[in-house]
């Protein structure tokens, strides 16, 4: 069979990358390892001394931890929703990207919730969430949502990878026996019979279909942690969809960055091609436009009616001596610039798309910061506190170190995962290559638009 032959040659190409660590990779790993260890030390300090080592105080009770939580969870949700949608629409070009999307989902959804744990003062009582849960609390909704989603994400990653595990377990490449055994075990007896193909496809379809509403629900639940409070800037009816879109937008940005990184580092130019960047770039434009629209209507309504606290908050956000710079950066660099850079054909290239993605990912982190911190600094009653650290929030080294540790964890997990599971799915990519060959033959070599 052709697919088998193609996949064999693909594996041959990828195998050197998967079977050994280069010095450069080890240095990379070491670098992030150190950052991670610094974070662990910060965690130790925080656990021993309490949250007093953070910049959080009675008014600004949440800081960069919750920002990181929203950020990572959002990225995680994206892998699933983008992967799921593309799978359902059967966009052929998606196939080389599916592994990155699925890995991104699982890794981020593992990291994100760690940040919410950092916000909890009494980790020794964490199990109370399970023995005394109160269903009215949005935190319990979130616990349920994240756990459900994690299971869904892992299943998605796994089901998409079964065929590659099967290929790996039967490959002619040399690998330690234990590794082959694990691949064999993970392939769950997949030997490519018609029935297995059918079942797998069905399972993936159902799962994709389920993941999409799940992502919408869990993202909304996340936003309701804020939306359910009586706080200016949080108590908003559009927070659900706003967060869903923000999550997917950021996540797609991260997807582009990952595509770029692996394309460069693993020499995957043949599989992760310019057209992939362009298609994902189009998705980014659509999302940026939608997100911009939400942002505009959110701020416009608050500003126009100028209810006391909303007016105060908007003033804080726009004032260049307060949050102005961050506000303009988040909303212009994060929304407008990507639209222009990707939208105007003259500028459009792998580099500008990646640049826009980097810009928007950073901008969206700040955007979350703007949602959390200024609101908490604008309570309904005047603070009248003499302790400056209680009035204005600024993150301490502990919080930055732990933020760094989260990024390090992301990098390390991705790198390690790429050693055990091909970053470009072998089976699906072979399928795509074969299909494209066939259409090419059928149309006598006429190039075909491959967005199916």
């Amino acid at each position, binding site marked *: 069979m052709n697919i088998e032959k193609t996949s064999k040659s693909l594996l041959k190409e990828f195998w050197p990358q998967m079977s050994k660590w280069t010095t450069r990779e080890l240095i990379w790993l070491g670098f992030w390892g150190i950052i991670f260890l610094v974070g662990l030390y910060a965690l130790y300090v925080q656990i021993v001394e*309490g*949250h007093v080592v953070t910049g959080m105080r009675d008014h600004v009770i949440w800081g960069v931890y919750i920002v990181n939580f929203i950020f990572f969870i959002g990225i995680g949700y994206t892998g699933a929703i983008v992967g799921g949608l593309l799978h359902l629409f059967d966009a052929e070009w998606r196939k080389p990207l599916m592994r990155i999307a699925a890995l991104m989902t699982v890794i981020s959804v593992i990291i994100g919730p760690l940040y919410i744990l950092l916000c909890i*003062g*009494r980790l020794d009582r964490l199990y109370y*969430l399970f023995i*005394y849960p109160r269903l009215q609390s949005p935190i319990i909704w979130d616990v349920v949502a994240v756990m459900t989603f994690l299971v869904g994400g892992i299943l998605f990653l796994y089901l998409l990878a079964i065929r590659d595990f099967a290929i790996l377990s039967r490959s002619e490449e040399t690998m330690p026996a234990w590794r082959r055994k694990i691949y064999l075990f993970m392939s769950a007896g997949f030997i490519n019979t018609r029935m297995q193909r059918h079942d797998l496809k069905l399972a993936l379809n159902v799962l994709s279909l389920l993941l999409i509403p799940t992502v919408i629900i869990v993202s909304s639940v996340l936003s309701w942690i804020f939306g359910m409070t009586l706080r200016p800037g949080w108590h908003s009816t559009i927070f659900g969809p706003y967060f869903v879109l923000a999550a997917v937008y950021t996540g797609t940005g991260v997807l582009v960055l990952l595509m770029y990184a692996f394309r460069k580092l693993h020499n995957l130019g043949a599989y992760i091609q310019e057209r992939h960047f362009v298609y994902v770039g189009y998705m980014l434009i659509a999302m940026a436009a939608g997100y911009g629209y939400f942002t505009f209507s959110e701020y416009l309504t608050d500003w126009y009616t100028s209810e006391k606290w909303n007016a105060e908050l908007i003033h804080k956000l726009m004032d260049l001596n307060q949050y102005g710079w961050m506000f303009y950066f988040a909303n212009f660099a994060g929304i407008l610039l990507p639209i222009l850079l990707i939208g105007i054909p003259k500028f459009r290239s792998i580099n500008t798309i990646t640049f826009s993605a980097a810009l928007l990912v950073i901008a969206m982190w700040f955007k979350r910061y703007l949602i959390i911190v200024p609101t908490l600094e604008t309570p309904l009653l005047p603070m009248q*506190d003499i*302790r400056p650290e209680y009035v204005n929030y600024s993150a301490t080294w502990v919080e930055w170190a732990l933020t760094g540790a989260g990024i390090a964890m992301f990098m390390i997990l991705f790198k390690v995962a790429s050693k055990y599971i091909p970053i470009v799915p072998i089976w699906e990519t072979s399928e795509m290559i074969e299909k494209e060959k066939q259409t090419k033959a059928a149309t006598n070599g006429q190039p075909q638009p491959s967005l199916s």
Partner: protein
Amino acid sequence: MDNSNSKRRNFIRTGLALGLASVAGATKLLGEPDEKKPAHNHTVKLLSPDGEIVEVDTADLKVETHEHAGTMARTITGREGIEGRKFVMVIDLGKCRNARKCIVACNKMHHIPEEKEWLQVKLMKDNENAAPYWFPKTCFHCDNPPCVKVCPVDATFKRSDGLVLIDNERCIGCKFCMAGCPYSTRVFNWGEPEITEPATCPPYSPESSTPSKHSTVEKCDFCPDMVRQGKLPDCVTACPNGVFYFGDENEDTVTNGSETVRFSQLIKDKAGYRFMEELGTKPRVYYLPPSNRMFPVERGFKNLTDDQKARFKDVQ
């Protein structure tokens, strides 16, 4: 003041206080008069929870000590309200001169250090032309408490007597209730809490709210352990100007320690209102507007240190 009138007041005052004290004990004992108890043959009059004056043998009265209240609260977990009660507070803004005696008393009672304030006195100015006024703020013990709604582990709860309390042995320190409370009432123990005069600290119960526990949330609790002993919350008795009126909505009586009045009448006569009614939290604390001031607002700055004065610079 007319002598007989003040006697009557005094009677009602003790009556109310004792009524609060004996609510658990006396109502139960009144229902079971045969119970064997050493009789003191000495009776007192007190207000029953239904607002009737009853005579009870002193032997049947439980006069709690602080410690006793603590252990008692322990056996009843502090989660059940005092039966038949519905506590309310009325704060008369016209009388406050920022003497800060309530804060000092509250901190002493709860063994919390000076910089931690469960009870705060803010300087408010509603608009440019409005006159500033002092605004003492307790927990409002809201009837529709947003803080309770969001607690994931039932560590903060609403009781049948209207109080919203915290079980610091249950609280996981997620601070969600702090985000939920729109009035910035709750404070968190960011580090190891400082406990002042630990030797006299009662055993922990949600009713004593002390000693503070690290990495958990605290707030004004309306001193239910004092109430169980028939005493008024400390802020009420400490205030030299009688700003705080505390009492029972079921009895329709509130007292500031020197004067006892009908709650409904007070609210009616003095145009009582609840702070930020529009939020729908239904506070159990009512305010009387700062009209007919007893003191000019400047009086409030007299005893303040420069640091404390600096707090209010935005308002002046």
